[in-house]
C-alpha cells in the first residue's frame, strides 16, 4: 500500500501486527486519527512523541485495552498475523493473552508473593501449570532476575524495589508466553541503573518476542529500537528504521522534535 512509508527494514521481514486506518476516541477527545503502520516480527518498535500525542493510546489499541476505559472507542482495524483483532467474533480476552502488556507504573499484585505474581497470569486464565516451579524459574530467568529472586520467591511483590517490580511484571507477562509484548513507558518511574537493566532485557527479548515500546525518551528509543514511529497530535508523522529516523528524518516536525525544539 502506498501509505507504507519508504524506510521499512530490508526483507526478509514479517508483519506481526498492522494498524489499518486506526482511530481512537475518548468521550471528550479524539486521541488517534488514521494510523496505518506495521509492527515487524522479532523487532523492537519504539513509539515516540510529545505528551498527549496518542502513543500510549496507540499501543492500548493493539491489545484492546483502550476500550476498558469507560466510553472509549476505536475505529479502523488492527491485524494480528493478518487477522483482525476487532472482528465481531474475536474475544478481547484471547487477544490479550497473545499480546501482553507492561505498564508505565510497575503494577505487581502487591500482596501476592513473587512466585504467585509470576503464576497469576496463568491462574487468571484458569490454567494450573503441571510444574509451576519450572514456569516460575523460566519466566524469572528470561526477565533476568532469577539469580536475585531465587531465594525471595515468597516475598510479597509490593516489597520489591521499583526496578525489580517492573521486571517482575515483565516475568508475569512472559509466563503466559505471549507473541507480542507492549511496553508503555516501562522505565519512566525507574532510576538510570534500573532503566539500563530493562533496556538490556528488551534487547535480549526480541529474539523470541515482538516488542512495541512507548517512550518519551528519544535516547531510549534510539538505544533499544530497530524501528521508530513518531506520533504528533494523534497522527503518525513518520515511521521507519530507527537510525534513519534519528539521523535523516523526512518530516520537518520529526526533525524539530528530535532536535529538541518542542515536546
Amino acid at each position, binding site marked *: 500500500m502506498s501509505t507504507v512509508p519508504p524506510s521499512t527494514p530490508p526483507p526478509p521481514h514479517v508483519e506481526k501486527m498492522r494498524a489499518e486506518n486506526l482511530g481512537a476516541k475518548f468521550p471528550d477527545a479524539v486521541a488517534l486519527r488514521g494510523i496505518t503502520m506495521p509492527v515487524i516480527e522479532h523487532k523492537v518498535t519504539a513509539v515516540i512523541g510529545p505528551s498527549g500525542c496518542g502513543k500510549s493510546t496507540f499501543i492500548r489499541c493493539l491489545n484492546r*485495552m483502550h476500550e476498558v476505559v469507560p466510553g472509549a472507542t476505536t475505529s479502523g482495524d488492527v491485524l494480528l498475523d493478518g487477522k483482525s483483532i476487532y472482528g465481531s467474533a474475536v474475544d478481547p480476552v484471547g487477544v490479550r*493473552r497473545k499480546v501482553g*502488556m507492561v505498564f508505565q507504573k510497575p*503494577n505487581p*499484585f502487591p500482596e501476592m508473593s513473587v512466585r504467585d505474581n509470576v503464576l497469576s497470569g496463568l491462574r487468571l486464565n484458569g490454567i494450573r501449570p503441571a510444574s509451576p516451579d519450572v514456569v516460575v524459574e523460566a519466566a524469572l530467568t528470561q526477565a533476568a532476575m532469577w539469580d536475585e529472586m531465587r531465594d525471595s520467591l515468597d516475598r510479597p511483590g509490593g516489597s520489591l524495589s521499583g526496578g525489580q517490580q517492573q521486571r517482575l511484571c515483565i516475568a508475569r507477562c512472559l509466563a503466559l508466553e505471549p507473541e507480542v509484548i507492549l511496553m508503555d513507558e516501562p522505565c519512566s518511574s525507574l532510576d538510570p541503573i534500573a532503566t539500563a537493566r530493562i533496556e538490556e532485557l528488551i534487547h535480549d527479548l526480541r529474539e523470541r518476542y515482538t516488542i512495541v515500546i512507548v517512550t518519551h525518551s528519544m535516547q531510549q528509543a534510539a538505544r533499544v529500537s530497530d524501528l521508530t514511529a513518531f506520533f504528533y497530535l494523534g497522527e503518525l508523522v513518520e515511521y521507519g528504521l530507527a537510525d534513519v529516523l534519528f539521523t535523516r528524518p523526512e518530516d520537518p516536525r520529526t526533525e524539530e522534535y528530535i532536535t529538541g525544539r518542542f515536546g
Partner: protein
Amino acid sequence: MSDAARVRTLASRRASESFVRGLAAGVTALTVVGLASVLFSVVGYGARGLSMTTLTALPRPAGVPGGGVANAIVGTLLLVALACAIALPVGLLAGIHLAEARTGKLVRLARTAADALAAVPSVVFGIFVFGVLVAWMKHFSALAGGAALALTMIPTVTRATEVAVRAVPERLREAALALGATRHRVIAQVVLPSAARGIATGVLLAVGRAAGEAAPLLFTAWESRFFCDDLREPTASLPVSIFTYTISPYDDLHAQAWAAALVLVSLVLVFQVTARLLSKRRDDVS
C-alpha cells in the same frame, strides 16, 4: 506602632488558637466520658447480677429467684446469623456491582436507595417485616426477626463493600485484564482479595449494630422463654429481654436486665474491636 500591632495580633491569635484547642480537647474528652460512664454503669450494675446461671439458665417466672438469659444469648446469635445469611449475599453483590459498574441509571438509583435505606429508622424495618412476613405467616418468628435485622445491615454492607472495592487501585485491575483475565475473574481473584479486609470491617460493624437492635425485633422475633428450636417460632434476644425486664416491676428482673446488657455490650465490643483491628492492619499495609 505597626510592629506593636503585629505583636498584639500574634498574641491574640495565639490566645484564640489555644482557646479553640482547649475547646476541641474538652469536647473530645466528653465523648470519652460518655463512653466511660455507660461502660462503668453497665459493668457496675451488670456484674452484680451476672453469674454462670445468667449465662446458662432459662428465665424463671417473675418473682421466682434465679434463672438466666441463656435463650436470649443464643437467640441473638441465631438472629444475627440469619440476618447475615440474608444481608451478606445481597449487600456484597450490590456493593461489588455499584463499585465496578460505576455509572448508569440503575447504579445511581441503587446507590441513592442504599443511602436512603441507611437513614431509615430501624423500627420502620420492624413494622415493614411485621406487615409483610409476620402478618402472612400469622405469627412472630426468628425468620422474621432475621429479615428485619438483615434490612438494617444491607445498606451498611453495600456501601462498605462499594468503598472497599473502589479503593482497589485501577492499575491492579488493568494488570489482570492485560493478562487476559475475564471481568469476573479479575473481580474474584484480584479485586475481592484486595478489598477483603475493608469488606470484613464493614460487615463486622453492621453485625455489631444489628446485634444491639431491639426495635426491629419487637414485632418480628418477639420473645420466648425457651430456646428457639424452630425458625418459624418466636425467639428471645438480648435487646428485647433487656427491654421487657427493665419495664417489669421486679427487682431481680432489673438485675437480669443489667446482666444481659453487660453480655450484649461485651458481644458488640468483640465485633467492634475485631473490625478496628482489621482496618488498622489494612492501614499498615497500604
